[in-house]
Structure formats: C-alpha cells, structure tokens
C-alpha cells in the first residue's frame, strides 16, 4: 500500500533527506521545509520504503502537499 509524507507547513522545500529505495521508520526525518527563516523537519508517520520523491529544493509547498511516496 502506498502513502504520502506531506508538507506540515507552507514554505519551500529545503531538502529531502532520504533516497528512493531507503527504508524509513515511523518518526524518522524525511524532508525539511524552509519557512519563517527556520528549518522545519518533516517526519514519517509510517514505517516503509521510499518509492518516489516528488519534490526538489526550492519547490513551493502548502499544507498537505505530498513530498515523498512510501510503500508501507
């Protein structure tokens, strides 16, 4: 089953810290959002394998935008 790790804040994508094929655990940092001149960590709510990365540095984000697809 697939699920997405989504943006928790509006802002810009600072970076994605996982690669396709990586195993991630629940609570693991997956990406970072740049907002309010600070970096906000985006954590995975699920354990799974990174299937696809949907965003790149400087991409604009709104709350709920998918950033990374996980196979869970």
């Amino acid at each position: 089953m697939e699920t997405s790790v989504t943006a928790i804040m509006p802002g810009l994508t600072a970076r994605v810290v996982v690669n396709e094929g990586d195993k991630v655990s629940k609570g693991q940092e997956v990406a970072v959002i740049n907002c309010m001149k600070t970096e906000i960590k985006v954590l995975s709510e699920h354990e799974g394998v990174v299937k696809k990365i949907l965003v790149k540095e400087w991409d604009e984000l709104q709350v709920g935008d998918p950033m990374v697809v996980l196979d869970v």
Partner: protein
Amino acid sequence: MLKVINGGIETLVEDWPGRLGFLGKGMAPSGAFDNVALGFANLLVGNRAGEAAFEITGGFFEAEFGLNTAIAVTGTPKAPLLNGKEIPMWESLEVQKGDIIKFSHIGEFGFRWYLAVAGGIDVNPYLGSKSTCIFGSYGGYEGRKLANGDVVRLLKPTRSLRGVVGRKIKKGLIPRYTREWTLRAIPGPNTSPDYVTEEGMNYLFSHSFKVQHTSNRSAYRLEALPDSFFARPDGGVGGSHPSNIIDHAYAMRGALNICGNTPVLLIADGPTLGGYMCALSVINADLWKVGQGTPNRDFIKFQMATQEEAAQARIDQKKLLTENTLI
C-alpha cells in the same frame, strides 16, 4: 503545570502589550502577534485581556495539563483535540489533570492559535513583560520556544471555574479570517514626492502583496516592489540603493520598512532602528491581522487611513476586548 509533549513548530509564551519602554535600548516590544485572539482567549477564562498565554504558530503542539483548570483556544480555525476529541474554539471549557491537548496543522485561514489558561502562566516577568523575544533569547519560558519535555508552571485560577466555563464570544464578534488581509495604514514618514513616486504610492495602496516564506516574528516580508516605486536614483549619503537613508528610529510596531525592493513589516521582535526608508505605518488596531497572515500563502493589501481613524479604531478595539463581548 503544563507538561509539553511536543513543542510543535513554534510555541511561545506571549502577553500584551509586551515589553514597552525599551525601544531606545534597541529592545523590541515582543508580545502576542495577534493581540485580539490573545485578548479573547484570556477574557473567556476570566483573565485580563493582556495576560500571557501560549502562542502556537504553525501547530503540532501537544501538552498534558497538571491541574484542573479552564482553557480557551482562539485563532486559526482548526480545532485542537482534547484526549482525542475536537474541542470548540472561541469558548472556555474545563480540563482535568492528565488531559492532553493536541494541535495539528493550521486551518484554512490564519496561522496562529492562542491557548489561554485560567489564572495565566507562571513565568517571571522580565522588564515588565512575560513575553518571549526569541531573537534576543529573553523573556517568556527561558527566552525560547517550548520544547519536548518542558514543564511550564501555570497560575491557579483566580475565579471559580464554574463562573467561566462555557463562556463564548458574542455572535458576530469573532474576527473574520481570510487569505487576503486588508491593513489600514498611514503613509510616511518616507513617501512621495521625496522618496517615492506618485505611481509608487498608488502601487503600494492598491497591490495585493504575497507574504513571503521568510516572514517571522521579526519581520513580515512581502513581495518585491518595482523599481518605478523609487523617486531617487540612489540613497545619497545613506547608501547606494534608493531605499537607503541615514539611520533613524523605526516606528515599531507596524512600520513598513523598504529594504532594497522588499517591503518588510516590522512587527513584534523587529529592529528598532536602521538605515532603510519606511513608507507607511499600519494602524495599531490592525496589527493582529499580520499575525494571522500565513507565509507563502496569504496576501496583504494596504488601505490608506488617517491618524483620527487610527485613534478611533484603537479605542473601538479596546472596547471590544472586555467582558461585555462575552455570553
């Protein structure tokens, strides 16, 4: 006490009107970014409107109450959960020792919540205020945003909980949230014709400016102005860019600083002086709207106002933030 399970993105202790009287020492006033939502939350639980409360920016704050008390949550319309169940906003309710409150992401409109607790927050006032200045690392709770595991002392309710639980704001008085915030503003001190073209001032008071993702409690940065905004080719002795002027004091809070081509609203924790021109000042009664402007999503428009209108709006807002607005 309140035990922080998750500090969230940025949760601060803030009161109102903040730390006044120290601009000359370079100290920003800090204080609640949205004093209206703070005021209503406090009034609902029987506190004075300016008592310190938790300002929750961006969300994901989670905490456990260590006493039986009354709380009220105001701000961005996304109700938090109490023990897993949504609670009503803009009204007071009772919480029990051990109850857990949890916020998720921001609502469709607005950017900040205020969580007031009956009696207030027990942090030592610093220079007359309980407000946190995060850029100066003073005030509030250890001069910083709350973090996982923090334990914040709460004051005991000063009134019987029975007397405050269930209070609501009168219908029609809850502020209207939007994604385009109109701020009434007085032009100046650096305007047309000396610093800004007439076309530039018209642009300033008609364009809808997107709030930039770099906006924070120090400054709300808006999308860039066109070069035609400036009346001068450079800043003369102030510097090479036409936005440069000789250093002067800024009208904190609410001055629109023009930093290069970027208009910057100087707010709670902003600088108190510098060498950039200021083209307008937002009236005090509309400052709360800036605090609900969501970076990288919302827009800000300026509407010209007079000093008389500003003074009246401030009086009207003060009248609004009284117990007469509660049912």
